[in-house]
C-alpha cells in the first residue's frame, strides 16, 4: 500500500514534469472552448461563404450543436491523444531500466500496475472534467435557453469508455515490450469493438456504445437504461483486464 501511494505520487509528478499532463489538459481545454464556439459560428461562416442567389435555410444553432461538437471531439481526437500519450506508460520505464532500481528496492509489481492505472485515470478524469466544465459554461453563455437532459450521465459513459481504454492499454503494456506493440493491441481491441457493433443485437453489450450513443442520450433517442448492460460489461472487462495485467506483469522477466 505504501509503495502504491509513493509510486502514484511519482507518476503524477512525472505527468506534470514531462508535460504529458499539460498536453492532455491543453488539448481538452481547447476542445472545451471551441465546441460551443464552432456551433455558434458555423452558420455565420457558411452564410458569409454563400454567394448571391444561393439561399439555404440554416437552422438556428442550439446548445445541442455545442454538445455534438463536444462528443465528436472528445471521442475522436481526445481519445486518440490519450491513447498515444499513455501507450508508453510501462514500456518506456522498462526499456530505459528506471523501474529496475525501484523494483530491487522492494516496490511490488502489483503496486506498479495499480498506481500506473490510477495515475492514468486521474489524468483522464481531470482532462474530461476540464473539457466538460468549459463547454458547459460557454454553452450556457452562448445558448442561454438550452436545457439538456441526461448530459452528465452521457459524459460519465464517455469517461467510463476512457477508463476501459486505459485498462486495455495497461494490459497490452504488460503483454508487450514496446509502446508500438501496446498501441497496436489497443487499436485492435477498439477495432474489434467497432466491428462487433455492426451486429445490432450486440450493441447493447458493447463497450463502444458508451462512446457512440452519447448524442442519442441527450436527444432522447436512446434510453439511459438501455446502456446498463454495456456499463456493467465495460466495468467487468476493465476489472478483468486490470487483474490480468497484474498477473502478467508479476511473471514478466525484466
Amino acid at each position, binding site marked *: 500500500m*505504501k*509503495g502504491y501511494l*509513493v*509510486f502514484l505520487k*511519482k507518476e503524477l*509528478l*512525472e505527468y506534470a*514534469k*514531462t508535460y504529458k499532463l499539460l498536453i492532455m489538459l491543453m488539448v481538452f481545454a481547447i476542445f472545451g472552448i471551441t465546441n460551443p464556439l464552432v456551433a455558434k459560428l458555423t452558420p455565420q461562416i457558411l452564410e458569409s461563404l454563400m454567394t448571391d442567389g444561393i439561399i439555404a435555410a440554416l437552422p438556428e444553432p442550439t446548445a445541442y450543436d455545442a454538445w455534438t461538437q463536444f462528443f465528436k471531439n472528445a471521442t475522436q481526437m481526445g481519445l486518440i491523444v490519450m491513447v498515444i500519450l499513455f501507450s508508453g506508460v510501462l514500456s518506456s520505464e522498462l526499456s*530505459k*531500466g*528506471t523501474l*529496475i*532500481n*525501484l*523494483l*530491487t*528496492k*522492494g*516496490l*511490488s*509489481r502489483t503496486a506498479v500496475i495499480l498506481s500506473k492505472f490510477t495515475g492514468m485515470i486521474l489524468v483522464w478524469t481531470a482532462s474530461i472534467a476540464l473539457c466538460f466544465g468549459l463547454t458547459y459554461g460557454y454553452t450556457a453563455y452562448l445558448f442561454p435557453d438550452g436545457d439538456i437532459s441526461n448530459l452528465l450521465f452521457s459524459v460519465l459513459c464517455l469517461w467510463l469508455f476512457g477508463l476501459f481504454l486505459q485498462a486495455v492499454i495497461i494490459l497490452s503494456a504488460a503483454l508487450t515490450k514496446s509502446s508500438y506493440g501496446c498501441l497496436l493491441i489497443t487499436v485492435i481491441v477498439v477495432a474489434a469493438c467497432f466491428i462487433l457493433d455492426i451486429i445490432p443485437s450486440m450493441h447493447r453489450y458493447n463497450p463502444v456504445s458508451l462512446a457512440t450513443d452519447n448524442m442519442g442520450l441527450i436527444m432522447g433517442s436512446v434510453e439511459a437504461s438501455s446502456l446498463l448492460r454495456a456499463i456493467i460489461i465495460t466495468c467487468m472487462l476493465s476489472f478483468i483486464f486490470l487483474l490480468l495485467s497484474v498477473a502478467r506483469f*508479476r*511473471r514478466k*522477466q*525484466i
Partner: protein
Amino acid sequence: MGILEIKQLYKSFGNHEVLKGLDMDVPEHSIFGFVGQNGAGKTTTMKIILGLLKPDSGSVTVCGEEVKYGETKTNRNIGFLPDVPEFYGYMNPMDYLKLCGEITGLSKSRIKSRCGELLELVGLKDVKKKIGGFSRGMKQRLGIAQALLNEPKLLICDEPTSALDPIGRKEILDILLAAKGKTTVVFSTHILSDVERICDRIAVLHDGKLALCGTLSEVKMSHRHNGLVLEFDNEKAASFFTDAEELKKPSISLLRKGNTVTVFLTGNNMDGQLIIDVLSRKRIVPLKFEVMEPTLESLFMEVVR
C-alpha cells in the same frame, strides 16, 4: 555460511544456454570480483539473484533466505547498481533518493540524514541540477548512493567501472572500497586491474560455470608455474648460462629471448636453488632474477581459452 550462495543454477534463453550449473559462495565482508567475458552471463546471474529473472533450475540464497522469482523480499538486504543506471531525468539527486527511501520504507528523518550522508560520500552533495543533465560518471555515483541507501548487507554492482574515464573509475573503486567495512560487495567487471586493486576474492565465469574461484592469493598460488625469469646484461652471458650441462634435462625447459631467459621447472623437488647453483658455479651475476607470478590477465586467458 556465505551471505550469498548459489547452487546449481541453470538458465537458458531460447536455445542459448547461459548458465550451466553455476555454484558460487560469497563470504561476508569481502569484495568479490565477478569476472567473465562479455555475454558470459554475469548480468543474468545478478538479475536472478535479484529475482528479476526466473532461473530454469537451481537455488539462490541471500542471508540464508531463498530468493523467489517475482517477489522482492530478499531484496531488502541487497543494494543493486545496474550496469547503466537510469533514473527519472526530471528529478534532482535528492528527489530521487527520497523516492527510493520512501519505497524502502525508511522513516522521514532517516531518509533525510541518510540522503545527506550518501550524497556527500559520492560527491553529489551540492548538485542541484536535474538528473537528465548528468554525465555517465555522475549517474554511476548516484547509482551507488541509491544502492547503499537501505544499508544493504550485500551490494551488487554490474560493471560499475566500464565506460568511465580513469578518474571516474578511481572514484567509484574508492567508494566501493570504503563500503567494504559495512557491506559485502559483489561486482562484475571485465577490467582485471580493477579486481586486482580492490577485490579480495575473485570468480571467473566461463561457459556457464565458475572456471576459477577463491581469494586472489589462493588463485594465483594454485596457478603458479614453476617459472623463473633471468635477465643478463649481454647475449654472451645468456648463452653461457643456457649452455650449462645441469640444465639439459627433460624436466627443465628454457625459453630464450635476447638477453632474457625463462626457465620452466617441472617435476618434484625442483626449485630456484638449482639455477642459483648454476649461476654461482659459472660465476654469472644476472641483472634480474625473478620468480614468475601469474598475472590475472594470464590466468583469465588460461581459464577462458
